[in-house]
């Protein structure tokens, strides 16, 4: 029987090169993917794609998806799925539209109300999953249809038969809160940049890019906040623990059920944010809003390194996963390829990402 002396260095350990360390980061796959996609489009696409307006062009859909994907990523790390986020976008959009148009509430009331409403739906989802012990896949699949159907029915009730609720734009005109959720940020800065010749302008002298679309700022802010929560707060540790092993986590005193229900609520709130932004942008809401977004969000999260089994992943990864998504959707229009290749591309990316993540997981856990 031997006692190892405390100062002894384990002779079986090789010093780890920087590259190998990087290999163990969950977001590596997504970053590598971004680089590959950039190289691909740099070779095949019109150079306009990587001009400022081109970048804004693909970052806008990336941001709208990304807000959902980060919520989905946190939930996946916490060990659950939410297939109802796409329908939640439509449902929250309906609620928001009704608040603004039908009830004529100002944004300062409508927006918090929409978030509270979405959080409640998320809590219902979460409670059913936790209390019944059913897989969240099935429960939220049910809600995918329930919420989509409710959105349709609700829209018809609110409009008297139409599946589109118009007039949001006129109602919110001049509301002081509107610029935080719609349009472009920093128009003054871009005007100044254009005047000084730093950015491209139209012949009239107006900048081609009038500002940064607010959803991009929300997207970046949410990615940073989520990363901070995951890596630097006890709540982050609880999320990883809940997803890693429910029994082990609760035996160690992690409030697993509370964590999971909060994550369902957070995901629903992300959907509500996307709903508010897109409804205000379009000026109307309809029942197809957010259609199939749940799959795209989960794909972005998986490309970002989230394991389907939970307990592993990163918000930064989902951030880059969404950017890949935006680049592919928009980038193909800059190339000679048929745009419908997009779906093939997406499926292929998903498959590669899952294989890659699996390999990474084995490395991390040291499985052989």
């Amino acid at each position: 029987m031997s006692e190892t002396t405390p100062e002894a260095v384990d002779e079986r350990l090789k010093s780890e090169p920087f590259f190998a360390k990087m290999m163990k980061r969950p977001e590596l796959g997504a970053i590598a993917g971004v680089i590959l996609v950039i190289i691909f489009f740099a070779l095949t696409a019109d150079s306009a794609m990587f001009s400022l307006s081109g970048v804004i062009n693909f970052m806008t859909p990336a941001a709208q998806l990304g807000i959902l994907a980060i919520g989905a990523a946190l939930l996946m790390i916490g060990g659950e799925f939410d297939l109802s986020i796409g329908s939640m976008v439509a449902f929250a959009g309906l609620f928001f539209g009704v608040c603004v148009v039908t009830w004529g509430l100002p944004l300062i009331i409508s927006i918090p109300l929409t978030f509270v409403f979405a959080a409640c739906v998320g809590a219902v989802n979460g409670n059913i999953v936790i209390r019944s012990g059913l897989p969240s896949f099935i429960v939220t699949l049910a809600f995918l249809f329930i919420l989509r159907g409710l959105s349709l029915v609700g829209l018809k009730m609110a409009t008297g038969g139409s599946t589109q609720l118009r007039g949001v734009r006129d109602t919110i005109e001049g509301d002081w809160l509107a610029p935080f959720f719609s349009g472009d940020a920093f128009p003054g800065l871009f005007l100044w940049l254009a005047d000084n010749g730093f950015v491209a302008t139209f012949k009239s002298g107006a900048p081609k890019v009038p500002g940064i679309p607010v959803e991009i700022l929300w997207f970046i802010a949410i990615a940073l906040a989520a990363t901070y929560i995951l890596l630097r707060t006890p709540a982050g540790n609880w999320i990883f623990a809940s997803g890693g092993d429910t029994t082990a986590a609760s035996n160690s005193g992690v409030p697993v059920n509370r964590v999971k229900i909060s994550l369902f609520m957070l995901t629903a709130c992300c959907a509500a944010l996307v709903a508010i932004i897109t409804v205000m942008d379009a000026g109307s809401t309809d029942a197809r809003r957010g259609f199939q977004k749940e799959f795209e969000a989960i794909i972005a999260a998986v490309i970002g390194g989230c394991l389907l089994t939970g307990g592993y992943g990163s918000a930064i990864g989902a951030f880059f996963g969404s950017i890949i998504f935006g680049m592919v959707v928009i980038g193909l229009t800059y190339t000679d390829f048929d745009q419908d290749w997009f779906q093939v591309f997406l499926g292929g990316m998903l498959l590669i990402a899952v294989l890659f993540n699996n390999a990474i997981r084995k490395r991390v856990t040291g499985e052989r």
Partner: protein
Amino acid sequence: MTDDSKFHHGDPTAHIHPVVEMKNIEKHFGNIIALAGVSFDVKPGECHCLLGDNGAGKSTFIKTMSGVHKPTKGEIFFEGKPMNFNTPRDAMEAGIATVFQDLAMIPLMSVTRNFFMGREPTKGKGLGKRFDTKFANEVCVEEMRKMGINLRGPDQAVGTLSGGERQTVAIARAVYFGAKILILDEPTSALGVRQTSNVLATIDKVRRQGIGVVFISHNVRHALAVGDRFTVLNRGKTLGTAVRGEITPEQLQDLMAGGQELASLEGSLGGTV
């Protein structure tokens, strides 16, 4: 492993009061009598081994001790006072830490994150309140070093540790969070020879810190290597407690098996069990 190892052995004498004392514990599940009068106590700084074959009631007993089950009959005293734990959480906060066989470890998470899981140290206030990773990493590396394990880094995933090392993380965690009694549920059952000795060495280190260790095992050799006292559980009853040196491995083995049957078996196996 010989009867006499180089481990320090506590000298549990009558004047030291036990931290936990359990008297005539009975536990019934419906018509099944899992425990039929078990008496057991642990003193600070000793390693009390609870031996028993499969189905003897070891698991039920430790679950009673750690607050998972409430005894049907019998009394439990904690530091001299009658205790009544409603949840494992209560027992944990009082200082009874249990390291179950599944260890409550998450392989994909780093050692530090596992170490502080559910009890993360924080710094800052209000919205700035955050997980103090620097402090957590330092503590984790230091505590593991005290137990004789040098981590590659605090961010090393638990999945890359060996079974014995994981066991040690679980023990170090319990000790760091102020355990007075450490219950180890078959800590060596799935380990190789070398890892077993490391875990046994860890148990010895824990005992030296004045913590009472309850070591559950069905392996007589492992028990004899570190144990100060031995209690054998058979068919839900204690068959008595022996002090180290008063009992031979053979006697213990026989007690565990309930006597007769094994004696004849052992003859044909040449004393290898």
